[in-house]
C-alpha cells in the first residue's frame, strides 16, 4: 500500500456532498479517509500544499477510443490512460470499436488487464452490442457485464436494426447495463463529411443534416420507452436532439445524454480551409446548435460532458478532407475548454462543471467514482481554475495530436491527479 497523502488547504469541491470549502483531504490505503479542517497527518504521511487550487473528485469520461487492440500507432490503452490523468480524468470508458472489437468476455478482460497494468486512470471497457459490430447478432451481454463491461455500444455506428436494438435494450436491463447510443440515421448522413449548411455548400463538401441525428435520437428514445431499457445518447450535437431528449425525459423515459467539449465550443466555421482536425462525427454544427447544447447542459437536459477522444495518426489526417478519418482527441483539453467556455463565460460555476464532468457520468455508468465521500476510492483531481495555458499538441501524452484547439488559450490547468491514492500525474514534477 502506498503512503497516506494529505492534501492541505485546497478548495474542495464535491457536488456529491454539496461541498465547496477550504478543507484538507486525507487519503489512506487508496480511499478517502477524511475531509475536514486542519486534519492531522498520520505517521509517514506525504503532505501536499494545494492552497489556491481546486480539489475535486477525479473526472469521469464515458466516451473514449483507446485504439488497442489493432491501432496501437494511434493510441494504446496505456498512452490513453496516461493522457486521461494528464487531463484530470481518473475513470474512462473505452469504446469497443477496436480491431478486433470488444465483443466477447476475453476481449473485455484484455482491456481491463491492460488498464490495470498501465496503472493510470481506471479503464472500464464498453462491450459491443452486436457481434463484430455488424448490427446483426446480439453479443453475450450478461457475460460481457460479468467480465467487467460497464455498458454496451456499437459506437462509431448506430444499431440500425430497430428489432435488434429493442431486444438488446430489453435484455441488457436484466443486468443493469446501459446502452450507449451513437444515434445516426445513416440514410440521411449518407456520405457526408461535415455539417450540412451554408459552409458545406460553399466548400463543396457533402453535408450531414441535423435530421440524421434528430431522427435517430427520436427512434432511440421511443425504443427505450418501449423496452424500459437504459439509454445514454452519446455526443449530442443538434438543437433538435436536445428537444427530443427533453421531451423523452419529461415522459419518464430512462434516457441520459452527453455532449463533447468540441460541440460546446466550436461551430462548422472551424472546418473552413478544409481543416481535417475539425472533422468528426457528429460534425461541428451551426451556432444555434452550439448555444442549444450549452443551454441544455446548463439546464440538465444534457447530463454530462464526455470527450469522444478519438486519436488518429497525423498521416491519416494530413490528406484530402473527404478521405481523412472522423475524430479528434479530447482528454487533455476537455477541462481547459470547459472552464474557459462554460465557467469563465459565466454559464456554469465550478461545482456545476465538476458535477457534469465527474458525479453525473459516474452515476450513468454506475462507476465507483464521482465522489470524495469518506470511504470512496481516492481518485482526485487537483487543478488551477485560473491557470491559462496554450494548447500545444506536441506536449500531449496521447500518441495522437489531432485537436481543433491547437494554439488556443485554455483556462483551467490540471496540477495533480491521484488514482486509488497514488499520484499518477504531477505537473509540479513532470514539466
Amino acid at each position, binding site marked *: 500500500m502506498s503512503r497516506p497523502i494529505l492534501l492541505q488547504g485546497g478548495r474542495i469541491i464535491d457536488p456529491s456532498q454539496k461541498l465547496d470549502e477550504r478543507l484538507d483531504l486525507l487519503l489512506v490505503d487508496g480511499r478517502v479517509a477524511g475531509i475536514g479542517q486542519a486534519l492531522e497527518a498520520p505517521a509517514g504521511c506525504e503532505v501536499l500544499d494545494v492552497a489556491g487550487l481546486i480539489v475535486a473528485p477525479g473526472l469521469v469520461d464515458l466516451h473514449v477510443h483507446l485504439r488497442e487492440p489493432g491501432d496501437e500507432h494511434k493510441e494504446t490503452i496505456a498512452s490513453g490512460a496516461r493522457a486521461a490523468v494528464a487531463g484530470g480524468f481518473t475513470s474512462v470508458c473505452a469504446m469497443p470499436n477496436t480491431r478486433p472489437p470488444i465483443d466477447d468476455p476475453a476481449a473485455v478482460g484484455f482491456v481491463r488487464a491492460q488498464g490495470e497494468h498501465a496503472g493510470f486512470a481506471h479503464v472500464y471497457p464498453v462491450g459491443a452490442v452486436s457481434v463484430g459490430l455488424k448490427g446483426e447478432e446480439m453479443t453475450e451481454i450478461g457475460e460481457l457485464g460479468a467480465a467487467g463491461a460497464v455498458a454496451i455500444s456499437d459506437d462509431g455506428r448506430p444499431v440500425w436494426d430497430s428489432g435488434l436494438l429493442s431486444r438488446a435494450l430489453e435484455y441488457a436491463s436484466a443486468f443493469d447495463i446501459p446502452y450507449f447510443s451513437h444515434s445516426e440515421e445513416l440514410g440521411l448522413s449518407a456520405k457526408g463529411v461535415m455539417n450540412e449548411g451554408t459552409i458545406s455548400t460553399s466548400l463543396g463538401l*457533402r453535408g450531414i443534416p441535423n435530421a440524421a441525428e434528430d431522427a435517430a435520437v427520436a427512434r432511440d428514445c421511443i425504443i427505450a420507452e418501449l423496452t424500459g431499457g437504459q439509454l445514454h445518447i452519446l455526443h449530442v450535437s443538434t438543437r433538435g436532439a436536445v428537444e427530443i431528449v427533453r421531451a423523452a425525459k419529461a415522459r419518464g423515459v430512462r434516457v441520459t445524454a452527453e455532449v463533447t467539449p468540441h460541440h460546446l465550443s466550436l461551430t462548422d466555421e472551424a472546418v473552413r480551409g478544409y481543416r481535417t482536425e475539425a472533422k468528426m462525427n457528429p460534425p461541428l454544427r451551426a451556432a444555434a446548435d452550439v448555444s442549444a447544447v450549452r443551454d441544455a447542459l446548463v439546464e440538465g437536459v444534457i447530463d454530462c460532458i464526455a470527450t469522444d477522444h478519438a486519436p488518429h495518426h497525423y498521416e491519416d489526417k494530413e490528406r484530402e478532407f473527404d478521405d481523412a478519418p472522423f475524430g479528434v482527441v479530447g482528454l487533455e483539453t476537455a477541462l481547459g475548454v470547459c472552464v474557459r467556455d462554460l465557467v469563465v463565460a459565466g454559464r456554469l460555476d465550478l461545482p456545476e462543471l465538476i458535477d457534469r464532468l465527474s458525479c453525473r457520468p459516474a452515476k450513468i455508468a454506475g462507476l465507483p467514482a464521482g465522489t470524495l465521500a469518506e470511504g470512496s476510492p481516492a481518485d482526485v483531481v487537483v487543478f488551477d481554475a485560473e491557470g491559462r495555458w496554450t494548447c500545444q499538441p506536441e506536449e500531449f501524452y496521447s500518441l495522437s495530436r489531432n485537436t481543433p484547439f491547437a494554439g488556443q488559450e485554455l483556462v483551467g490547468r490540471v496540477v495533480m491527479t491521484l488514482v486509488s491514492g497514488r499520484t499518477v500525474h504531477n505537473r509540479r514534477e513532470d514539466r
Partner: protein
Amino acid sequence: MTKTVEFGKDLTGLEGLSLAQITTILDVAEPFKEISERPIKKVPVLRGKTIVNLFYEPSTRTRVSFEFAEKRLSADTVNISGSGSSIVKGESLVDTARNLEAMRIDMVVMRHGSSGAAQFLADRIPSNVINAGDGQHEHPTQGLLDMLTIRDHMGGIEGRRVCIVGDILHSRVARSNIYGLAKLGAEVAVCGPPTLIPHGIEDIGVTVFKRVEEAIEWAEVLNVLRLQLERMEAGYIPSLREYNRFFGISVARLERAPRDVLILHPGPMNRGVEIDSHVADGPHSVILRQVTNGVAIRMAVLYLLAGGSPERAEAAKMENRA
C-alpha cells in the same frame, strides 16, 4: 491608370478573388484571344517555366485546353494523369506535393476528385497552383471562361440574369459561376431537381427555381450543366428520360421565352438529356465560343500568376513579332 491589381500565388477558386482581380483576368484574356488566331500561335512569355498538369480525374477537355494555353505561352509542360502513372499511383497527395517541390516545378495545374485538394496542395508547395477542378468545390477557369463568353455576347455582366441549370449539388462549375458572377454584379439563379440543389444555397444570394419554365422566363443566360449518369444510379433522379422531360433545355421551351436566351454548356454534353441538339447547335448557343475562350482565359491566368503585369499583356502578345 488605376493601380496594378496584384495576384496571389495560386488560383484555387473565385470565392477568394476580388472584383478587380476577376475583371483583370477577363481583360488580360482579350489580347491572348488573338494569339490563337495567328498562323504561328506562340509567344515567349513563359519560356523556361515548367508546368505540370496533374490530373487525378480524366478530363481530356480541360487538360488539352490548359496544355494549349501553356504551349502557346512557350512553357515546358509535363502531363501526369491519375491512372497508370507512378508518381500518383498509391502515393498520398502530400507525398506527391513533396516530390513536385523537389523537382522545382514552377506551376502545377491540378484536377482532383476531392473538394479542397487544390488548397491542400497550394498550402504545401512554393509553386503556383491552379485549380482545374477540385471535387464539388470550384473550377475557377471554367467560371472565368463562362463569364468572358457572357461578357462578349451581352456586352457586360452587371445586372444580367444568369441561371445555372442542372446538378448544382455536385457541380464545381456551378460554384465558380455563382461566386464569380455575383462579384461582377450579375443576378444569379439555379434550377434543377430539388435533390440536386444544395441546402442553404439561398443564403449565398442565389435564387432557386424549381421549374425550368420559370427559369427560362426569368433568365437572359442559361448555363446548362452536364448531368452525370451516376446521379441516377445514386437515386437523386429516377431516370434520364424523366430528367429530360422536366429539366431538359429544348427548343419548344425556349420558344416560349420572352427574349432570346444565350445558351452555355461547360461540356461534354449529353445531347438529349440536359440539352437537346437543336439548342446546342442553335443560333443562341455559344458553346464552341466557350471552348475558344477557355484557352485565352487559361493563358491569362498562367501569365498573371507567373507575375506578368496586366498592363503589359498587349505588349507581351506582340513580342515575337519584332
